[in-house]
């Protein structure tokens, strides 16, 4: 039997944490991009598009992320599309976060006073000019804090990818514990590492939020 020193445990967890971080970054980028596309489509105020996006958001916000992971992983293979744990995890986390990002950003756009749109109309701006020069810059400022805040949820969400066999921090913790049988020590370290990743993000979100209040 292999002997694990404390340092070995930590080292292996740190190596696995790389995948947690990478998965989070990819989900953040993918979800952000897709969420942005949804937000722009939605802002065109086409009834049909709006309905479809509303359904999309309801589904991905209303179904537990764990089920989304299962459905992507097992559902796609049922359809004959073989996906590995990586692809399934990235895909579900992207869809999941795009729904939330879209909702955050739409909220920020709608929070702008109607008068901003009216002023633009009376000045003769086109829809694109209004979005580009007036709406998006203001909505973006407002959305930075909640967006960073949600990225904490993404990081924590990656833990669920362990159930489909993706070896990230949580899965690595389980595997190491199976070898060393020191659950408290191992999982305390796992928790600590999550905290180390998430805490700076929370602090950043809070900082940005307070900064936003001052400038407005």
């Amino acid at each position, binding site marked *: 039997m292999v002997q694990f020193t404390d340092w070995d445990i930590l080292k292996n967890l740190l190596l696995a944490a790389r995948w947690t971080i990478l998965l989070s970054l990819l989900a953040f980028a993918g979800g952000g991009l897709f969420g942005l596309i949804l937000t722009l489509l939605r802002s065109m105020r086409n009834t049909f598009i709006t309905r479809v996006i509303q359904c999309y958001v309801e589904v991905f916000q209303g179904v537990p992320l764990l089920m989304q992971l299962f459905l992507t992983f097992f559902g796609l293979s049922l359809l004959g599309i073989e996906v590995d744990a990586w692809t399934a995890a990235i895909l579900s986390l992207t869809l999941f976060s795009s729904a939330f990002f879209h909702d955050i950003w739409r909220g920020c756009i709608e929070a702008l*006073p109607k*008068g*901003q749109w*009216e*002023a633009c*109309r*009376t*000045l*003769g*701006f*086109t*829809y694109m*000019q209004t979005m580009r*020069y*007036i709406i998006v*810059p*203001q909505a973006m*400022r407002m959305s930075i804090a909640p967006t960073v805040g949600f990225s904490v949820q993404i990081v924590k969400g990656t833990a669920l990818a362990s159930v489909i066999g993706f070896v990230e921090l949580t899965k690595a913790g389980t595997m190491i514990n199976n070898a060393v049988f020191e659950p408290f020590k191992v999982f305390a370290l796992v928790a600590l590492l999550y905290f180390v990743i998430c805490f700076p993000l929370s602090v950043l979100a809070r900082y940005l939020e307070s900064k936003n209040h001052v400038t*407005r």
Partner: protein
Amino acid sequence: MSLVSLDEVHKYYGENHVLKGVDLRVNAGEVVSIIGRSGSGKSTLLRCLNGLEEYQQGAVIVDNQSVENDDYKLRLLSRSVGMVFQNFNLFPHMTVGENVMLATKLVLKKSVTESRQLAEELLAKVGLADKFDAYPGNLSGGQQQRVAIARSLAMSPKVLLCDEITSALDPELVGEVLKVLEQLKEEGMTLILVTHEMNFARDVGDRVVFMNQGKVWETGPSDEVFANPQTDELKSFLAAVR
């Protein structure tokens, strides 16, 4: 031919019949004040003039352009009709100068130099030459409203619509905004003002329009209407606001 004309204009918000056949003509250079009780349709009337609201029946013609619900036509119309709002609606993320310059750059496609020069002139005209680089949030209400006026003027409109533009201001700041309007009148600008400032309506307005129940109830030269109101409704309205 009048600069602004409304013919039998009807406007509904769902079931709510807000404008019930409004007829009104405004000539170039005229200053018309619109008065009336809350809910009588003053704002709605103004907003039908520049397409912010659709109307269901009748015709609105401004500067020889029919006001229709068509994005392209409304953008063209925006060169003829300016609007100043009760709560300014300045762009808070831009400096005062950028607020004034943006439309000339984007819509009239003027160069930055030209736009900047125009903005400086207009800000000087409303007495804010030194605020070019300030942000709206750092200005008083009266200053913000004067910036908003300068922003509308940048499009060199033929008529300027003002919807209670002094109502959100502290009393001591009302004067500086009204002074700008007086100055515009002297320069021959056509003004349509929804206002609660009866003294201003009487002294500066050429003509008063009293709106009641979605109609132009009574209208005439300002001094006459205020000195000698004809209808009971206007009499009681004037008695109530004085």
